[in-house]
């Protein structure tokens, strides 16, 4: 089992398009991609989750860790924003109250444009 993460650099935003099943066996890959992006000085991140068909709390943990990291960088304007989560992913986000913590956009374009 694995996930794929396609990373695209925009002028001010890094877009990570994740596909596959994000669970305790694959969440590490998501965490590495997020941390690698932030380590490279890119603190404005859009996570496109439209192709994630499954997300457990292990995936949420990586997303929240990344959000805490970028928001803890004063003056960076850093944020992790979510584009187009599937109904099932949205449900777990809501269950953990993360729909109030992350900014969620219906499309990738809106999420990227929001920065």
């Amino acid at each position: 089992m694995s996930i794929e993460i396609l990373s695209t650099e925009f002028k001010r935003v890094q877009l990570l398009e994740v596909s596959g099943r994000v669970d305790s066996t694959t969440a590490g890959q998501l965490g590495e991609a997020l941390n690698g992006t932030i380590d490279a000085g890119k603190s404005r991140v859009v996570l496109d989750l439209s192709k994630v068909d499954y997300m457990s709390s292990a995936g949420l943990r990586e997303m929240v860790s990344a959000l805490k990291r970028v928001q803890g960088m004063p003056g960076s304007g850093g944020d992790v924003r979510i584009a187009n989560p599937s109904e099932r992913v949205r449900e777990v986000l809501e269950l953990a109250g993360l729909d109030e913590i992350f900014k969620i956009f219906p499309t990738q374009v809106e999420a990227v444009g929001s920065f």
Partner: protein
Amino acid sequence: MHDERYLSFKAQLENIPPACEFVVEAAEAAGLDERATYHCQLAVDETCTNIIEHGFPKSQHGHLGTIDIVTGVDDDSFIIVISDNSPAFNPLTHDDPNPSEDLANRAPGGWGIYFIKKLMDSVDYRFVEDKNQLTLRKAIAVHRAPVRPPTSELTITSKPLPKNYLQVNLVGRLDSQTSPKVEYELKTIINDKGYQRLIVNLTEVDYVSSSGLKVLVSAWRLARQHAGDVILTDLQPRIREVFEMIGFDMMFHIYDSPGDVIADDPISKN
């Protein structure tokens, strides 16, 4: 418990996705809908992840740890029993995280057990024969996958007639599937469109179930509250037979055709 299925695997993370697959198949076979099935696999994933990450010391991964899953159906519930031989730990005594906590005050993780409790209809923990045993239950009736009955269709048209009558034509089956629509349409006609004199033409109705009868009665009652009436016409012989058997002909004016109603005008006579 019946339809039991068993799976036993070493307590290693890479064995969780196949275990989820096993649970998905069992949940679907039990008749759960797609969303409830997803909830079951998520609950099993979270349970097994916790057992593996917290129950067994890292060095023992895959050596001593074994997880057993039994699924089955009992009392119209889908049951998942997850047992493991890690040290006794009751996850239900674990404090729930707070979903309204702000970012600064929340830990990134710790949602697994909370999810299990929220996603299942009940969760029960026991320590039996040196094993942790978590029993998850999802009610099938509440989350049943739709079994598509033969689609029943009914169309409704209407046209105004003289003397403030409205002819309502029903075409199709008047049964539990179609009667809510008929009820709504008739109510709208009487309450909102201002017609209280309805001639319900049943030429093309070949079946009326008890819910269909109820709808006709409630429309009849509503129309009469507004000094109107619901008059039935053009009954097929079998329907007429049923209506007479249950005494509908004592309640409703029944005519052979809308023209006969207009000619007789029973409402103005009342």
